[in-house]
């Protein structure tokens, strides 16, 4: 398996090489271990900020790097490949949205809330009210971008500082990434901190969050498969590398198939995001397809790669789990597979069987 950056893409090789070196230097094994134990990787985040990655998608005139969406998502995959324990993806997305809403994104980590289906926040008279569970790095992020609807149902974005919300920290997903409960208790927003939300409908951050997690799962699956291919080539049993056993070969072929399919739908979601910048792309459907298919692949790839690694992959010592625990966490965040599958299915059924093909191939 190769690195995400083997793909042909428009992001300069320079930038991805820089990111690669950055993660190699600042997200080595010890940093992942420390993050698991509760010590945030501050040097990593500082390095990312110095490289301008958190604001990469923000136009240059708003203080960002003006990176294209596709290249930004490539960076998200690479960060996930390295299991970088920071809210880089969330910050990139939040900053991008805020800049598109006309705001200048602040420095520091920015998270997104609500992040779960069914949770909502409301705005009335410049006052924000709501609760959100499972917010990524919710207690630690310097800012939280909140999706809320006003009394007329208009989608808005509110940029809320750390001092403005109360947090119940201590929750983590099974990758030990912080997932906190935030409460917005009659938060009075400054005029510049509340803007009409671009791109979003009543689903709030769910579709774009689902696309983020899909990209991340692609990166983490690539890492799993790289681990498994390496291990299968080295591990000798019954006098030969286990890579020579047909059972191992076929399992890994299946995993490669899942990864290829997941990559395809994750790419498709990037196209939809890109199209959404200029036209009314069908972001919701692309997000649903990406998260549903990628999440399913994540479970399969994680299972296969663990099976190939045997007991070794089950240990804390072996780095496989940094990828697999993220897959098992991310597939359930911003809507699990059935949540999105049901969305797709209802839409397809409502349109009828003959309408499916134009939906897939274009009208």
């Amino acid at each position, binding site marked *: *398996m*190769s690195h995400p950056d*083997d*793909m*042909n893409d428009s992001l300069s090789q320079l930038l991805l090489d820089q990111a690669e070196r950055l993660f190699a230097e600042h997200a080595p094994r010890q940093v992942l271990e420390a993050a698991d134990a509760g010590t945030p990787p501050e040097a990593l985040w500082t390095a990312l900020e110095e490289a301008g990655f958190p604001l990469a998608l923000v136009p240059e005139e708003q203080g960002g790097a003006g990176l294209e969406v596709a290249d930004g998502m490539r960076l998200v995959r690479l960060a996930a490949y390295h299991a970088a324990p920071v809210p880089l993806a969330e910050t990139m997305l939040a900053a991008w949205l805020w800049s598109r809403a006309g705001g200048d994104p602040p420095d520091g980590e920015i998270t997104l809330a609500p992040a779960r289906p069914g949770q909502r926040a409301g705005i009335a008279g410049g006052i924000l009210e709501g609760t959100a569970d499972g917010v990524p790095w919710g207690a630690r992020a310097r800012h939280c971008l909140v999706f809320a609807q006003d009394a007329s149902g208009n989608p808005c974005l509110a940029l809320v500082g750390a001092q403005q919300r109360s947090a119940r920290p201590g929750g983590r997903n099974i990758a030990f990434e912080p997932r906190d409960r935030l409460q917005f208790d009659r938060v009075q927003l400054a005029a510049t901190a509340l803007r009409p939300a671009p791109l979003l409908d009543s689903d709030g951050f769910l579709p774009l969050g689902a696309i983020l997690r899909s990209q991340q799962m692609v990166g983490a699956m690539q890492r799993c*498969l790289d681990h498994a*291919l390496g291990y*299968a*080539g080295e591990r000798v049993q019954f006098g030969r590398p286990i*890579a*020579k056993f*047909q059972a*191992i*070969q*076929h399992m*890994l*072929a*299946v995993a*490669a*198939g*899942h*990864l*290829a*399919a*997941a*990559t*395809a*739908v994750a*790419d*498709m979601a990037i*196209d939809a995001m890109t199209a959404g910048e200029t036209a009314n792309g069908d972001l919701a459907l692309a997000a*649903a*397809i990406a998260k*549903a*298919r990628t999440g*399913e692949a994540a479970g399969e790839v994680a299972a296969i790669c663990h099976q190939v690694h045997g007991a070794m992959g089950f240990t804390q010592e072996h780095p496989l789990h940094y990828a697999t625990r993220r897959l098992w966490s991310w597939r359930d965040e911003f809507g699990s*597979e*059935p949540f*999105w*599958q*049901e*969305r*797709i*299915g*209802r839409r*397809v*059924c*409502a349109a*009828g*069987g*003959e309408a*499916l*093909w134009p939906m*897939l*191939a*274009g009208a």
Partner: protein
Amino acid sequence: MQGFRFDPLRLPPEAAATRQRIRAYLSSEREAGRFAANRSWDSFDPDFSRRLGPAGFIGMTWPKRYGGQERSALERFVVTEELLASGAPCGAHWVADRQSGPQILKHGSERARQEILPRIAAGECYFGIGMSEPDSGSDLAAVRTRAVPADEGWRINGSKIWTSNAHRAHYLIALVRTEPPGEDRHAGLTQFVIDLSAPGLTIRPIRNMAGHHEFNEVFFEDHLVADDMRIGPPGKGWQMVLGELAFERAGPERFMSDYRLLVEAIDRAGPSPDARQAVEIGRLVSHAAGLRRMVTSIAGLIEQGEVPGVEAALMKDVGTTFEREVPEVVRRIAPAEPSLDDPADRYVDALARVTLQAPSYTLRGGTREILRGMIARGLGLR
């Protein structure tokens, strides 16, 4: 992944135009009642093919002097996927258009090109596949049918099996041994275009388990073939066959064989499905969307003149796994007792036909086990 190339591809504007053309054509065919929907590329209907050819949708990429349209591989791709999506009966011309014609164009003699390609493009000339033999299915290099030089060209003895439509096709391309097997078992094989109306051939029908006659065994007894019906250099048949297989495996029919069953199941579930139906249909659609993008990427490779062997193997493995799932999933969300005796119930009819056909999806064109071995080689495991 090393060597796996599924780069994003945006179809060019001319492909969009072609899509509108073939859609309009199929709509008019359907409106005129000229084909029953819910057939697929294994439904043999020469009338359909004889209309489709003159309409310009067969041999599209070939030079005009051989009856082609000089269109891009991407336009041809669009036509194939639209045919599949509509459930058109494409079985008569499918193999000729997909792989036999291209082999002749690329590696055949000028005579073969001139005599055969225009007739394929006209929708009048059909091919079977002459690879497998009774003792060499997955293990193609073990073929024992032999060709020896003869006055007029070559004399062939042996037999081929599983040749779809040999009883109603005009030709097949046969892989035969022209040199005794040596150290390199892939050496010494050669491909020939076989005229099924010529002497020295006996065709034995092999009915499938649904009772249909699609397969045949073809016996060669001192069958003579001219040297200019050879495909590629003598002894290089293995390289020829690998190229042919990449085309055979690379198309959207490798995940769309039972696309029409999915369409019928959606309509069976109706506009207000229950949660089970919605979730399962949504899941299948998410798979189909990924596969369509993968197969589009492969079409892009073909357009660039590549032979996407490993990518085609991977797509076919994932795609046929999906095809195998479709009937198993839909029967659970829209229960029915499958029967071939109630064609008026299009869902039940499609379910029955697919249930009986599905085992072949992961066999024909390379078994799942062969494909996974190829993928593993692409991953560097072999």
